[in-house]
């Protein structure tokens, strides 16, 4: 580990990509790493999608060293990654990592519906959204035909309306109904649209929803008990990383107690949370602040996500446009 730190400091730089500062508290993670190891971090394309991250592997010295991608992109691009196993490798559950270390989950959350409790009544089920109190208020945080988050929102709606991880059609139908009733707002939900009241009801990962609390103190998050859709993101190291030692040191930092707790503070569920709770190193206040998981989580597999995506790409415009 000391040798790694020395090598990383000799490199002096790290390039990351698609890490918005308000996403799972990445702002603090980045500054924490910078402060601890005195290594400069260049943060590219903060609004990029997972596909953008892998597309940026161009073999130059400006390419990103590490990526944080959705599952579909991780599975499809293992040829571009270098295997690495962090110190706490055994703490990561078997299903949450690729066996040789090409990718490994970092944090996750559940798809929730965030809402401003002063603007709409409390939400107790997904079907509530079809009510007249929600006119022109419901939005997604991304276009489901290209965004992982958007797609999972539709999957969650599908499961809550009688569909399943294999059948996303009920979700598309649900949004079609929302649109017909005039409740659907097609604007992409962002911090600004939430604060301004343009999107008072937003389908979003619960940890991202949590960050709106600082703009809208009355913001609440609802996760339906019959549709707890979990989504994990994965870390991977660029095979042609311009700063390989710094990349590995970054991974070590992310999976250290410090890194994992920072994500926990951001409202995400770090992958080592169970192990850290057992060993007592978890940040108890942050853990307690997480919304309770109301049911059994379901996580769509790569195949299920692909199939759902194909259906959505073919049918979404017709449903909500």
């Amino acid at each position, binding site marked *: 580990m000391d040798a790694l730190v020395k090598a990383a400091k000799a490199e002096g730089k790290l*390039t990351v990509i698609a890490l*918005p*500062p*308000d996403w799972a508290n990445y*702002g603090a993670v980045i500054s924490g790493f910078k402060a601890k190891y005195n290594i400069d971090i*260049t*943060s*590219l*394309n*903060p*609004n*990029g999608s997972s596909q*953008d991250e892998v*597309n*940026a592997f*161009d*073999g*130059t*010295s*400006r*390419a*990103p060293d590490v990526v944080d991608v959705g599952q579909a992109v991780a599975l499809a691009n293992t040829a571009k990654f270098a295997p690495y196993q962090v110190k706490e490798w055994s703490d990561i559950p078997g299903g949450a990592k690729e066996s040789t270390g090409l990718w490994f989950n970092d944090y996750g959350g559940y798809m929730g519906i965030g809402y401003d409790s*002063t603007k709409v009544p409390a939400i107790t089920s997904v079907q509530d959204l079809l009510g007249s109190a929600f006119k022109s208020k419901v939005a997604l945080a991304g276009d489901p035909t290209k965004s992982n988050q958007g797609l999972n929102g539709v999957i969650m709606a599908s499961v809550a309306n009688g569909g399943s991880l294999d059948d996303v059609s009920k979700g598309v139908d649900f949004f079609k109904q929302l649109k017909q009733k005039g409740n659907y707002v097609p604007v992409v939900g*962002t*911090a*600004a649209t*939430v*604060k*301004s009241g343009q999107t008072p009801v937003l389908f979003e990962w619960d940890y991202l929803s949590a960050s709106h609390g*600082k*703009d*809208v*103190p009355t913001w609440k998050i609802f996760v339906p008990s019959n549709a707890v859709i979990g989504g994990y993101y994965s870390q991977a190291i660029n095979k042609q990383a311009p700063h390989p030692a710094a990349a590995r040191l970054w991974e070590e930092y992310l999976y250290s107690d410090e890194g994992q707790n920072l994500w926990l503070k951001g409202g995400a569920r770090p992958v080592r949370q169970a192990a850290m709770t057992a060993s007592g190193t978890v940040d108890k206040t942050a853990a307690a602040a997480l919304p309770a998981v109301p049911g059994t989580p379901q996580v769509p597999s790569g195949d299920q996500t692909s199939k759902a995506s194909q259906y959505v790409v073919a049918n979404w415009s017709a449903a909500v446009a």
Partner: protein
Amino acid sequence: MSRRRIRLQALRIAIFALAAAFFLVPIGAMFEFSTRGIGVASPRTLSAWAAIPSTPELATAITVSLELALITSLLMLGLLLPTMVWVRLRLPRLNRIVEFICLMPLTVPAIALVVGIKPLYIWISLNFTDSILTLSFAYLILVLPYAYRSLDAGLAAIDLKTLTEAARSLGAGWGTVMLRVVVPNMPAAILNASLLSASLVLGEYTFANLLNYENLQVAIQYVSLVSAGTSIAVAVASLLFAFVLLMILSFAGSRRRRGGRVVPAETPIAPVATVPPSLLAEGS
């Protein structure tokens, strides 16, 4: 005659009033939002604005973008203008081809063009230099349609053939002809072309972002993710910055006009207008 003038003035005022309403109201809405506090009844605050200068990357990004703007403008004047002059004087058959090539960048959407240009930039990065200033070659392509239009209007307004022949018959070399005859006779067109190059470069996002460089717009994206208010504040700030810059440049242009050597072609055709800056920035 004076009745006509009064009607004209009334029409102008009506048009400007409508235009002001349409264009300034949304910006006003942005400014209003960027000064909101947290919660419904909280007082106005400038904290979103205060967050802007505290980002170190922004200062570097502004400098780099201004450098890019300068280099792109110089490249444009050094490559495009002599070529256009040469084509007009010696190779008029190529006129249509050059015009078509200069209009081509508008036909390919920026997101697709950057995919095509990326392999080239990878090659440049690996074999020459990593510097962000190499972006100016790509930016010149984006600027071509508008620079061409502006310079073309300027060249059409002066009698290029007579001027150059007169200069050459007095013994001037081509360098002198370009620098001391052509350029001083089309100051407005050159200024317009430079203005639009500058604003295109300052507003460009897609190329820099997808080629992993950090220019002004990319840095602004990052700053805008700090908070909701800052994202809008920084957009308004960059609009104001660009506006001030363009105003300064437009004043610089008018002073140069008095320094012409040959009798300037101050006919009503002489283009006084600025020409559109990047719209491809829209596509970013």
